[in-house]
């Protein structure tokens, strides 16, 4: 294992020290609870929007903290959900009395820890709502699994919900919009390489030079099937086709996220986006907005995911609203 780390046990704490050093004017860091807090939180009367999860997906979630998006990001260990007391501390730090929305990716640990935190916060009188993002179409049989995973669609949910909260919407309104956005998101990803969890010291799975792992999540866990590498034209189709089979995207404007897993250069992501946009045009899908880059990563994994969100006017309005975070700015 070759990584820019001091010790596998201090990776998250060291990264938070770096964020504190890099962004003193815009972020507050609670090192004890591993929280990245917007400098303007809590803002009186504003609904707090909070997310979090295992570390290793940066810029998700800490890179999306700031005006127009998240008030607090809660950092767990690498690929490990944060604990209920961390999430409770986030709720206490950000709640202004207007309530808080927890945006949770659908992983067993995240759901349980955020659920316990919500119960603890409710007992303290904080008005808490939560939305679970489960956009990964690679998981087909929800009856016999923990259900679809939350992946790339999380970025869009956080952006839209954060903008709505910034605009003064109530907790019920922000929650309804976030839920509608989560319900309208579908994603599919592939890996060209595995990744190495620092504490494990070796790659999570082994892939031969000519193999890809199709239908991955974002924790370096193996996917649904192992296939041969192919031209990006064909790989784009293997990502887009199951998404379009799952939901009709031809009757609404669509937000497209062409996301890198951390180890894939932008030149390849743009190559992928070229194929994705051609495929969508050929299928009659109208791309209203797009985002190409590394937004929801899996450490140094090479690979990519495609997310489509079937938008409406309100989602597009909040997508376009100003945002000022280290990971997204316009």
């Amino acid at each position, binding site marked *: 294992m070759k990584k820019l780390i001091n010790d*596998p046990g201090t990776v998250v704490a060291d990264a938070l020290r770096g964020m504190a050093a890099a962004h003193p004017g815009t972020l507050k860091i609670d090192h004890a609870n591993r929280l990245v807090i917007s400098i303007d939180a809590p803002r009186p009367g504003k609904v707090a929007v909070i997310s979090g999860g*295992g570390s290793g997906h940066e810029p998700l979630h800490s890179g999306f903290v700031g005006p127009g998006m998240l008030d607090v990001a809660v950092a*767990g*260990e*690498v*690929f*490990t*959900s*944060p*604990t*209920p*007391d*961390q999430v409770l501390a986030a709720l206490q730090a950000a709640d202004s009395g207007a309530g808080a929305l927890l945006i949770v990716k659908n*992983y*067993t*640990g995240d759901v*349980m*820890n955020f659920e*316990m935190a919500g119960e603890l916060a409710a007992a303290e009188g904080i008005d808490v709502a939560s939305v679970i993002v489960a956009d990964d179409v*690679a*998981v087909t*049989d929800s009856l*016999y*699994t*923990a259900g679809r*995973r939350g992946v790339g669609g999380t970025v869009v949910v956080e952006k839209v919900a954060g903008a709505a909260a910034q605009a003064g919407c109530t907790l019920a309104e922000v929650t309804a919009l976030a839920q509608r956005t989560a319900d309208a998101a579908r994603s599919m990803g592939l890996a060209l390489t595995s990744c190495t*969890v620092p*504490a*494990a010291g*070796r790659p*999570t*799975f082994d892939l031969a030079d000519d193999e890809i792992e199709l239908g991955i*999540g974002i*924790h*370096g*866990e*193996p*996917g*649904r099937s192992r296939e041969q590498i192919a031209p990006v034209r064909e790989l784009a189709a293997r990502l887009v086709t199951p998404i379009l089979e799952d939901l009709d995207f031809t009757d609404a404007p669509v937000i497209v996220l062409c996301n890198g897993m951390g180890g894939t250069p932008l030149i390849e992501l743009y190559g992928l986006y070229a194929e994705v946009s051609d495929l969508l045009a050929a299928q009659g899908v109208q791309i209203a907005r797009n985002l190409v880059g590394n937004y929801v990563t899996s450490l140094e994994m090479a690979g990519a995911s495609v997310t489509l969100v079937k938008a409406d006017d309100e989602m597009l309005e909040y997508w376009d609203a100003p945002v000022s975070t280290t990971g997204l700015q316009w």
Partner: protein
Amino acid sequence: MELSPQILAGWLRAFAADIAENEALLTDLDRQIGDADHGANMVRGTTAVAQLDPADFADGRSYVKKAAMTLISTVGGASGPLYGTLLLRLGSALPDDGPIDQAGWLPALRAGVEGVVARGKAGPGDKTMLDALIPAVEAFEAATDQPWQAAAEAAAAGRDATVPMIAHKGRASYLGERSAGVADPGATSSALLIEAAARTLA
């Protein structure tokens, strides 16, 4: 057997030592069907529990509850809430300190396992820690002699029985049929918990 914070700390410290000894195994199992962090997470949590001083607690119940809260706040992932809930419910159902026998332990063990079922929404055969814990409690109840030994053997057998299972819960479930062939990491650590009990509580 006299129930006391010291006796219970003996159990959980033995568990912590077993987890530390098996960290690489737990991580390797999790690497194959999960996300390669079960060993590190359980070591972090059980090490924190081992540092609790039983002399600081008025009774066994309060010691176990503190151990549960420690696991919840240090383990993370799914294992933190699940092991935390197991000990929280178990601790709450313990009788007052003093003599405790098979009949005294049984409601506490049952309450702990029922807590895991409620929190994780899993059942037998889903390839989870319950596949070690449920047979362990059943064997404990059925044993006419040495119930902890019977529970430890049943937990180990339950752990081994998870090898051919296809996971229906947790991160391994995303692998579908590819999750078969590897013991469940949670069932493996749960078997260590019961085996540690057999050494320290019998």
